[in-house]
C-alpha cells in the first residue's frame, strides 16, 4: 500500500539524515600525538569581551612556550570553544574538547555559572580544569580536579577593604555593585571584611548588569557623603557608573576590584576613573620584569593592554605547561603536580591549597592619567 512505501522511504531518509548528523558532529577528532589544551569562554553574547581576552592571553603563552621548544619537546595546541556564557553551551564545549579534541586539560570558563555547570563533567572525565570564575562556590564542590587561577571575590575584596581601611584610613565606605554573582559576592566580602573591623558600609546600592543609567542609585549614595565608593560589576557598567557619579557631584575616592582598571572601564568612565584605587592579582604597570615583558608582547600582539582576564589565561597555560613538563601527560599526575606546584606568575605567586585556590595575595594600583599604575602607599 502507498503509505507502506513512503514509510519505508521515510525511515530510510531519516536514518540517512541521522547518520549524516552523527558523522558531521563526530568529524575531525584529533590525533593524541600533540598536547592539546582546551579553552572555554564566551566569544559571542553579552560577555564576549572576557572570553576574547582570556583566549588572547592563552594564545600568547602557547606561542612563547612553543617558541622555546614546547613542553617535553612536543608543541602545545589550543582548542578554543565558545560557551556564549551559557551553562548548557559550556558543557557542550567541554564535551567537544574532551571527547573530540582529546584535550589534556581545560582552562575557563571566565564566568562562574558556566564553570559550575562544567564541574560534574570534569569530575567524570577526570582531567584538570583551571577555572577563572571568581564565585566562591566553584572551589567548594570538593572536586579534586578544579584549580582556580584567579583571586576569588572574598580574597580580592576583603584585602581591598583591608587596604582602604588599614593603609588609607578611610572609614565611610559605600558599595555600589551589580546584582550578578560577581557584584553580590563582592559586596558580601566587603561587608564581611568591614564587620571584622566592626564597621559597616554607609550605602549599599545595586544595578542590573547592562544598565546604562545609574543616576537614581548614585543620588542615594551621594546623600550618604561617603569617603570611598567601591564599584563592583561588569567593566562597562562600572565605567559608566563612575562617570555618572562624578556628573552628579560625588567627589569621594573611587575603588574597586580587578577589572575596574581595565582600558574598557577606564575608557567608559571617560576621566572619572582618575585616581581610582583597585586591588588586583595583576597590574599591567607592575614594575616586575616578568609582568612588563608579558604586557609589552601582549600589547604588540593584540593592540591593547592586557588585564586580569588576559593575565589569567596567560598564567593558566604556563601553570599547565610547568605541571606537564614535570609530570608528563597523565591527567592524574598533572593534577598532583599542580597541587604541589609553587609558581611565580604575572598575577602573583600561585600556591594551590586543599580546595584548589591558587592566589591568596593582592597587589594594589591607582589609575593615574588614565593608566593603571602600580601603587605603593608607603612611597606616596
Amino acid at each position, binding site marked *: 500500500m*502507498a*503509505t507502506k*512505501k*513512503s*514509510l519505508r*522511504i*521515510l*525511515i530510510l*531518509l*531519516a*536514518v540517512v539524515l*541521522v*547518520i549524516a*548528523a*552523527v558523522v*558531521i*558532529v*563526530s*568529524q*575531525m577528532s584529533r590525533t593524541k600525538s600533540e598536547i592539546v589544551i582546551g579553552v572555554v569562554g564566551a*566569544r*559571542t553574547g553579552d560577555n564576549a569581551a572576557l572570553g576574547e581576552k582570556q583566549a588572547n592571553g592563552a594564545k600568547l603563552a602557547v606561542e612563547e612556550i612553543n617558541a622555546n621548544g614546547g613542553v617535553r619537546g612536543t608543541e602545545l595546541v589550543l582548542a*578554543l*570553544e*565558545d560557551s556564549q*556564557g*551559557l*551553562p*548548557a553551551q559550556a*558543557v*557542550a564545549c567541554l*564535551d*567537544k574538547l*574532551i*571527547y*573530540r579534541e582529546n584535550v589534556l586539560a581545560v582552562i575557563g570558563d571566565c564566568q*562562574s*555559572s558556566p564553570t*559550575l*555547570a562544567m*564541574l*560534574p563533567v570534569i569530575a567524570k572525565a577526570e582531567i584538570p580544569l583551571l577555572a577563572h570564575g571568581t*564565585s566562591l*562556590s566553584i572551589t567548594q*564542590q570538593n572536586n579534586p580536579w578544579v584549580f582556580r587561577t584567579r583571586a576569588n571575590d572574598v580574597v580580592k575584596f576583603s584585602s581591598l577593604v583591608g587596604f582602604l581601611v588599614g593603609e588609607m584610613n578611610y572609614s565611610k565606605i559605600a558599595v555600589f555593585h551589580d*546584582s*550578578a*554573582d560577581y557584584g*553580590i*559576592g563582592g559586596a558580601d566580602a566587603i561587608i564581611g571584611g568591614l564587620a571584622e573591623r566592626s564597621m559597616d558600609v554607609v550605602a549599599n546600592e545595586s544595578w*542590573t*548588569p547592562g544598565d546604562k543609567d545609574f543616576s537614581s542609585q548614585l543620588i542615594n549614595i551621594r546623600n550618604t557623603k561617603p569617603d570611598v565608593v567601591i564599584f563592583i560589576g561588569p567593566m562597562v557598567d562600572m565605567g559608566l557608573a563612575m562617570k555618572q557619579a562624578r556628573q552628579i557631584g560625588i567627589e569621594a575616592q573611587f575603588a574597586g576590584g580587578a577589572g575596574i582598571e581595565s582600558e574598557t572601564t577606564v575608557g567608559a568612565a571617560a576621566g572619572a576613573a582618575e585616581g581610582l584605587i583597585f586591588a588586583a592579582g595583576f597590574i599591567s604597570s607592575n614594575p616586575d620584569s616578568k609582568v612588563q615583558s608579558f604586557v609589552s608582547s601582549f600589547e604588540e600582539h593584540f593592540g591593547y593592554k592586557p588585564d586580569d582576564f588576559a593575565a589569567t589565561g596567560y598564567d593558566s597555560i604556563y601553570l599547565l605547561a610547568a605541571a606537564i613538563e614535570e609530570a608528563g601527560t597523565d591527567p592524574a599526575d598533572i593534577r598532583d603536580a599542580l597541587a604541589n606546584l609553587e609558581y611565580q606568575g604575572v598575577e602573583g605567586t600561585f600556591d594551590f591549597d586543599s580546595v584548589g585556590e591558587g592566589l591568596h595575595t593582592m597587589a594594589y594600583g591607582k589609575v593615574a592619567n588614565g593608566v593603571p599604575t602600580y601603587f605603593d602607599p608607603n612611597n606616596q
Partner: protein
Amino acid sequence: MKARHHENFITHVLPFILIGVIALVPLLTRDPYLMHILVLGGIYVILAIGMNIITGYCGQINLGMAGFFAVGAYTSALLTTRLSLSFWLALPISALVAGVAGVLVGVPALKVRGGVYLVLITTSFAGIVQVILNQWVSLTKGPMGIVGIPAPAIGNVLIYERIHWFYLTYAIVAVIVFLAIRLVGSRIGRSFVALRESETSAQSIGISPAFYKVLAFVCSAVLAGIAGSIYAHYMTTISPDAFGFNLSVLALIMIVVGGIGSIPGSIVGGVALALFPEWLRALGPYQSVAYAAGIILAVVFLPKGLLMMGVDAVQLIRKWFLAPDETSEKEVS
C-alpha cells in the same frame, strides 16, 4: 480517501518513527558529546511541542516560553535541593506550577488585541520572571543560581551517565508526543485550530475563545515546565542567564523551522536546532553569523518547515520511481 491516509500517517506514525530512529543512535555511537546534544535536543522537542500547541495550533504567538521553562526548572531545583523531594515528585509539581503561570499569562492575554501586543505581553512576562530570578536572592540564590541539583534515581540506580539521561529524556518525549497527538486530535485540538483559523466562526459554533485560549496557554506552559525540570536535573546547576529572551526565540524558531502546527515537525525542529549550532562550531568565529543567516533563509524560504519539505521530497521520489504503482492505485480508489 488517500489524502486522509497520508495525513494519518504523518500525524500518528511519523513522530514515533522519528523518535525511534533517534533512539537507535546509541547503536552507532555512545559518545557523550553527541549524547549531550541529543539530550538537549530532547528537551527542546518538549519545548517545541508546547510552543506549537499555543502558537502553531491555537494561533497565539507566545514569546514567553523561557519564562515557563524557568519556572519549571527553578521549582524542580528548589523542591529537590531545599525539601529534598525526589525528581519524580518534583517533575509533576513543577509542571503544575508552570501551568498556574500559564493561567497567569493566558488570562491577560485574552484581553490583548492582535499579534504584536501578544508578543509584547508574553515577552514582558518572561522578562519579569528573569528579573525575579535575579533579584529574589533569598529564594533563587539570585544570579549565582542553584548548584548541586540531585540526579533522579530509578530504584537505587542514579540517572547520571549521559546515555541514561538520553534514554530517560526520550522516554519522556515519547510519552509527551503520544499525549500531544491525542490532544491535538481531540475535540479540544479541533477547537484550538478553529480559533486559529477564525475566531468569529469558532464562536458562531459555540467554541468559547476564553476557555480554549487559556487552556492552550496552560498546556504549553506545562510542557515548558516539564522541559525546564528535566533541564535543571540534567545540568545539575541552573542560573537566570540560561533563561533569557533567546530561549523564547529559540522555541519560536524551532517550530518555524520544524513545521508550524505539526507534532512531528516539533520533533524535527527541536533536534535540528540542537545539532545545527554544533555543526557550525567548525566555522569558529563565523558560527553565529552563519547561524543567523541560516535562520533567515529557513524562515523566508521554507514556510512549510523542514519536515513537510522532507515529506514532499519523499512524494517526489515516489512520483519518480513508483509511477506505475501510482496509477494502479488510482484504479483502486
